[in-house]
């Protein structure tokens, strides 16, 4: 038995994803210039862009390709989508004018446009080395940093905003960027102030106002106002300005209102077919709706126009991979007379489908039945569950790029998650992740995606703890430490912990806080109040209003009561983080040294401080191991049982508990424990065979059949026994024809296999009689 090693942040970290694509502005499109480009010819062509006659701009830029100034040719080639020539000509221009800072900044923007932010940033830094007070370069650096959510971007932006001497165009552009970032975090008052500053500046300096007006439309959208007239005004001025819709789509996207976002991206593509980023976003949206062929068409078109976008290439490769997936539908066919529960569509790699599908189906059906009852909401259509055996495929499916740290993502009625084969069993409880994600399906769909991030995550974590396959409040040490240090956010601002975290692990801490808040609400006010809050959000309420309506409390009073609850319930660990951590570590160390008595004393000390502790380094495991070593079997079994009941899921520890239960004749409990292992480590053929045998002993042949089929699907070394076991279950179910086939397969492999021979003789006898 190895010590439990779970990664709590990952276990609880299944998340809704804020797509970073286009977070600051759509890449792959040469944006507005507010004074950095000074050549009159380029300015004349730029003025024609996004007009009713798109050919006019194209012809204008083409004419510039033959001018002598290579920087002008570079701008023209860039606008025409010839990035390679643009790059060559910028290089040529800089060779002639190495100290031309604006030119270097423009070259950097070309790199940013071709998805090479690191290279772009280097050029902006080079520009700043030559001219430290160049505000264009500072702003450009802020843009690329902010697009990847780096904190340093804010400092760069502030430098520009605070500079009286910055050119008006830079200040204007900086105000727009700041307004956009504020809009993303929901700082609506700041947005209004920033846009109010930008408007007179544009008027005084006669700067283009298309982006400003688009942001005003986005602000209206976020505030729930009608955007029609504002968007129409933008499009009246520039009829093929796809960003009008892309920007609005982005603000739906980050609030997970994917249906509305996708519709807007479609409009963007309609008015500007060469907006490649819009096609990528549209394709991503279509994938969320499981419309793969339509999505592929968009990505293929995007690839032709912008082959540099890694999201496009990654997603096309992923779509190729999906041909290796099975699509399984449960129930199939749908329940006659109108299904009381929605169909479940499972997409899983063919190699794993026979192993995972039975458990996915069982768990998903159970979760959805519970959620429908608890939240009084019926999901209006099939729920698609995609399971990726390669984590990077999952990451690409989710964010278009590899390297994502999440385990699962829900888009609405579709969710994607890692397969248990893509992660170490020590890191990942796939059953809890599925349980968590399915809760998002309900919170998102029931509110039309209006639920705030914190509440959706809070309910998902609460459901993991209260009804999922690993029940018990499970909070990692660093989260207790953060809460003990007073880092809990006010409920009204908890979303910020997810969207713009300010310290390492704040996102994970926010998950835990959200889960604890929902647990507090359920315990103090009743779990039905969570449903009431959900319905308040569906009506468009903000958190303060939802809390007031559901609980009769102001947000501040709620925060006070929650803090009291935390200290009442978890005061031991909150007051004693250090001794708790020391006791846990001492227990593990003593175990390694085989100092059993010390291991027991230390583990018990840790459990006195925090009784429910099944996270990485849980004291239950060394405690049980030491008790076993000292021959205190009954104590050890009780310890493992407590570990399991509190949500512990180390497969080896649970396998030991199951075998001890079995040896004690507690067979039903042994089966229950063994079944729970399937939700963390389902790829052990011996485990399924064993469980099937125990189920047969309990006359549960149908359940045994499932286990035996899974064992066989794992292509066991001892295939003869696997077929034979299957035959026995089929005989018990009086399915003799299938049993005959199974026993023939066993004896085909091992003709002398005595028990199978006897079963064959029995079947032959039964057939004769």
């Amino acid at each position, binding site marked *: 038995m190895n010590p439990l090693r779970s990664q709590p942040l990952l276990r609880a970290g299944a998340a809704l994803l804020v797509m970073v694509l286009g977070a600051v502005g759509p890449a792959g499109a040469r944006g507005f210039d507010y004074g950095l480009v000074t050549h009159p010819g380029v300015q004349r062509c730029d003025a024609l862009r996004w007009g009713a006659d798109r050919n006019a701009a194209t012809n204008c830029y083409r004419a510039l390709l033959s001018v002598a100034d290579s920087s002008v040719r570079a701008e023209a080639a860039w606008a025409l989508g010839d990035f390679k020539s643009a790059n060559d000509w910028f290089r040529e221009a800089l060779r002639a004018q190495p100290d031309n800072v604006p030119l270097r900044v423009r070259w950097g923007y070309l790199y940013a446009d071709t998805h090479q932010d690191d290279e772009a940033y280097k050029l902006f830094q080079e520009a700043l080395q030559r001219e430290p007070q160049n505000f264009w370069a500072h702003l450009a650096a802020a843009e690329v940093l902010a697009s990847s959510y780096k904190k340093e971007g804010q400092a760069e932006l502030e430098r520009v905003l605070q500079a009286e001497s910055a050119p008006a165009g830079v200040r204007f552009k900086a105000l727009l960027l700041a307004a956009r970032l504020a809009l993303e975090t929901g700082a609506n008052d700041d947005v209004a102030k920033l846009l109010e500053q930008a408007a007179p500046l544009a008027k005084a300096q006669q700067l283009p106002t298309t982006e400003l007006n688009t942001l005003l439309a986005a602000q209206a959208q976020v505030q729930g106002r009608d955007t029609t007239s504002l968007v129409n005004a933008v499009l009246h001025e520039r009829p093929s300005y796809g960003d009008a819709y892309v920007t609005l789509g982005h603000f739906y996207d980050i609030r997970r209102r994917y249906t509305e976002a996708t519709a807007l991206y479609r409009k963007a593509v309609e008015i500007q077919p060469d907006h490649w980023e819009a096609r990528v976003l549209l394709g991503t949206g279509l994938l969320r709706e499981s419309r793969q062929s339509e999505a592929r068409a968009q990505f293929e078109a995007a690839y032709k126009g912008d082959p540099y976008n890694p999201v496009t290439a990654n997603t096309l490769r992923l779509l190729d991979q999906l041909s290796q997936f099975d699509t399984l539908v449960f129930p199939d066919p749908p329940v006659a007379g109108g299904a009381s529960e929605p169909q479940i569509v499972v997409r899983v790699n063919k190699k794993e489908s026979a192993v995972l599908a039975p458990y996915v189906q069982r768990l998903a059906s159970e979760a959805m039945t519970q959620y429908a009852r608890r939240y009084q909401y019926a999901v209006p259509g099939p729920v698609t569950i995609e399971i990726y055996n390669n984590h990077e495929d999952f990451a690409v499916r989710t964010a278009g790029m590899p390297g994502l740290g999440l385990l699962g993502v829900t888009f609405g009625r579709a969710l994607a998650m890692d397969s248990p*084969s*893509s*992660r*170490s*069993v*020590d890191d990942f409880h796939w059953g809890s992740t599925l349980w968590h994600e399915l809760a998002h399906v309900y919170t998102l769909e029931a509110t039309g995606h209006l639920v705030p991030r914190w509440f959706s995550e809070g309910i998902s974590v609460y459901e993991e703890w209260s009804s999922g396959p690993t029940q018990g409040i499970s909070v990692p040490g660093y989260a207790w430490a953060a809460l003990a240090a007073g880092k809990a956010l006010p409920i009204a601002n908890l979303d910020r912990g997810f969207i713009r975290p300010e310290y390492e692990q704040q996102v994970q801490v926010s998950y835990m806080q959200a889960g604890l808040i929902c647990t507090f609400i359920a315990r103090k006010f009743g779990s039905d109040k969570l449903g009431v809050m959900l319905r308040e959000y569906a009506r468009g309420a903000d958190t303060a209003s939802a809390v007031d309506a559901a609980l009769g409390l102001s947000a501040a009073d709620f925060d006070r009561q929650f803090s009291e609850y935390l200290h009442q319930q978890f005061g031991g660990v909150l007051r004693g983080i250090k001794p708790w951590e020391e006791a846990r570590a001492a227990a593990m160390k003593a175990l390694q040294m085989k100092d059993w008595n010390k291991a027991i004393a230390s583990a018990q000390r840790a459990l006195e401080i925090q009784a429910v502790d099944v996270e990485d380094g849980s004291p239950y495991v060394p405690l049980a191991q030491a008790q076993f070593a000292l021959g205190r079997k009954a104590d050890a079994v009780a310890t493992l049982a407590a570990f399991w009941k509190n949500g512990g899921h180390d497969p080896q520890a649970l396998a030991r508990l199951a075998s001890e239960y079995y040896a004690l004749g507690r067979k039903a409990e042994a089966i229950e424990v063994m079944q729970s292992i399937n939700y963390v*480590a389902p*790829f*052990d053929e*011996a485990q399924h065979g064993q469980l099937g045998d125990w189920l047969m002993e309990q006359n549960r042949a149908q359940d045994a059949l499932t286990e035996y089929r899974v064992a066989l699907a794992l292509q*066991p*070394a*001892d*295939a*003869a*026994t696997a077929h034979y076991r299957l035959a*026995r279950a089929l005989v018990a179910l009086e399915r003799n024809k299938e049993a*005959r*086939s199974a026993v*023939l397969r066993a*004896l*085909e*492999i*091992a*003709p*002398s*296999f*005595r*028990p*199978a*021979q*006897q*079963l*064959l*003789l*029995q079947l*032959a*006898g039964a057939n004769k009689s």
Partner: protein
Amino acid sequence: MTRRWSLAAMCGAWLLCMSGAAQASLQVVVCEGLSGESAYAEQFATQVDAVKRAASTVTDPQHIKVLDGRNCNRDAFSVLLKQLAGSLVADDRLALYLIGHGSFDGEEYRFNIPGPDFTGHELQSWLGSLHARDQLIVVTGSSSGALQELLKAPSRIVITATRNGAERNATRFGGDFAAALSDATADSDKNGSISVQEAFDFAQRRVQAFYERDVRIASEHALLGGAQASSVTIARLSNATHSTVAGAEGDAAVAHVDSPVRRRIVEAIEALRLRKADLPESDYDAQLEALLLQLATLDATAAGAGSAEAPR
């Protein structure tokens, strides 16, 4: 493939064969290398013990020579092999297990033992001087794959824990190979004994499952070189419920397994299996069932249990 290995296969286990072919002996040599750490010392000792117990099921205890971790030095090992070179005859067989760490410097493999290590070339030379034609060499440690080409010889099966000398990390293979020798699930054909191939397959799958479980890049890839590993039995299982001849013992069991009638049925099943792809599934199953029923009836009669015996 030699006649002797085939005979062993036909008999199902060397122990049973020995009673009818007493003139040939199976010599088992086990050398336990330096562990380096206490954890490895425990593992190696467990593996040596498992190999020793398995060997005792297929050969006479006096033919099992074990040099443990303190005693398997270069001199003792070479002396032992030289003694065997003087005593073994062509019909004898040798099973050599090297349990421990190895190293490979790009040119030479070394098995890590107290004092000077012995090299792959030395091992090649010592084995070459043995008259026993049929040899099984199992090397469970790091870098052992470097021996595959070096030790290749007719009628010699070479199992290494790694595919080359460059896989230098400590291996898991030895533990799983040793476990196979007494695990009924390794007995894939359910004949009551573990063949070299079965033990190898069992261990290889276990190792693979370990690395997959942890989603780690596998640092060892075992290799089996040589032919007819399925026909060479290296352990006899004590659990009789899996045996063909449960209920029958000793000569009676051999006589039954070796009876012309039974052999004809088994050969017919084998021939039918080879034609599987050419037959409609229902025809194949019908023919297979008929043959299997004959065999089952025959075995049940021999076991004295009859067809009415309830399956487990």
